[in-house]
């Protein structure tokens, strides 16, 4: 695991926007081209920096949405109401614009095919981004590790990577995808329609007996509840890795 550690200085690098993918009405993926990018592991994130003409700078962290592939770094950004950086990235950034990034950052919430499985991915809202990097790495490497992907979103339109997930689930025998829609769902929806709870985790997550590697990412309340319930169901805490996501980590209690 220490092999994932980042060594040496992480310099700021110029990255140009080459493509945008509108994932949902509030979520956009941004494909960046970064010449000296050192590569990364699925689950890692970057720091991103914007500089205004008067020198004012803003920095934020974003998970990387796809495994390493040359100079390409893909992030997926959710619009934060009253945000400072996400509205710019979603509404103002154009193809050819340059920003600064540095990374990769984080070496614990990572999965690569050599880690094996079964792999259990559980995401809430935009918390699915680092999980998608893991799933894409699994598919791309034709990993033997079977994968289950459980995500929670408010509505069908809010499902990030929906079309790709449908394709992967239908074409890859080792991948199972389940979405739960907590607020609105289409009339013909056959999946679950409630928040992720104990019954849903017991039904759709690999059983503790097969010792899955579980990765949980989402807003604070989601991660707290899912991780706690997984341990109650018998999963070893050492096999449950968590990461918080969202505007600034979640609600205050």
């Amino acid at each position, binding site marked *: 695991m220490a092999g994932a550690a980042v060594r*040496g200085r992480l310099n700021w690098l110029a990255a140009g926007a080459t493509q945008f993918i509108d994932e949902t009405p509030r979520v956009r993926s941004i494909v960046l081209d970064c010449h000296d990018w050192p590569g990364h592991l699925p689950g890692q994130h970057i720091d991103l920096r914007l500089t205004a003409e008067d020198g004012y700078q803003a920095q934020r962290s974003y998970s990387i949405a796809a495994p390493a592939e040359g100079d390409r770094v893909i992030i997926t950004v959710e619009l934060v109401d009253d945000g400072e950086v996400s509205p710019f990235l979603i509404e103002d950034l154009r193809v050819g614009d340059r920003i600064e990034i540095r990374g990769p950052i*984080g070496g614990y919430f990572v999965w690569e095919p050599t880690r094996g499985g079964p792999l259990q991915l559980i995401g809430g809202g935009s918390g699915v981004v680092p999980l998608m990097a893991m799933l894409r790495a699994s598919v791309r490497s034709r990993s033997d590790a079977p994968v289950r992907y459980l995500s929670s979103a408010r509505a069908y339109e809010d499902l990030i990577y929906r079309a790709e997930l449908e394709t992967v689930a239908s074409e890859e025998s080792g991948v199972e995808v389940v979405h739960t829609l907590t607020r609105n769902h289409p009339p013909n929806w056959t999946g679950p329609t409630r928040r992720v709870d104990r019954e849903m985790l017991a039904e759709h997550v690999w059983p503790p007996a097969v010792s899955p590697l579980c990765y949980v990412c989402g807003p604070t309340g989601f*991660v707290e509840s899912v991780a706690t319930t997984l341990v109650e169901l018998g999963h070893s805490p050492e096999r449950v890795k968590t990461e918080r996501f969202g505007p600034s980590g979640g609600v205050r209690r």
Partner: protein
Amino acid sequence: MSFVTRGFRGRRRLEGPPGRVPPGQYVTTDFPVLSAGPTPRVQLEEWSFTVTDAGGDTLEWTWSEFTSLPTETVTVDIHCVTKWSKLDTTWEGVSLDTLFARVGSPGSHALFHSYGGYTTNLPVEDITGGKAWVAFRYEGEPLASEHGGPARLLVPHLYFWKSAKWVRGVVVSDSDRPGFWESYGYHNYGDPWREQRYAGD
């Protein structure tokens, strides 16, 4: 060398009072939660805190013993490496000075251990002299488990990952060993005013 991003002006929201917000940080009013695994649930009757000195001698306090020690209430700003800062947070806890007053050989470096397996390392001079506490109350209430309760380390002058949640003890010695995030590429010291986020910063 940084360069201007076309069209970015910045909203400078909640910039904070001068001198209070380190470079690269923004002020938040909520209290984000960050942790690498499930929140450990520690029963108070099973909780203890130990200090092991450089000579290998260990002192141990139960929850009732620990919370009977003299406490201090401090109001401080906290800075998370993920970029948020939170101003004027009020904590109650036991100063590390109080704990170390009973220890024979303090050594030069400290490695804190938590329930759940987390560790973090700090120089002893950064946790003595009124700079660090083991806190068990936040804003007048018992510290919630997702924020590190029953008790967490509070070292507000360093990035907040150094303020280990769910602490159970500290081992001091004359050698510096990296803790959890320090082994994953985060800075060994973590001064927010020098923006020491990652190794090499």
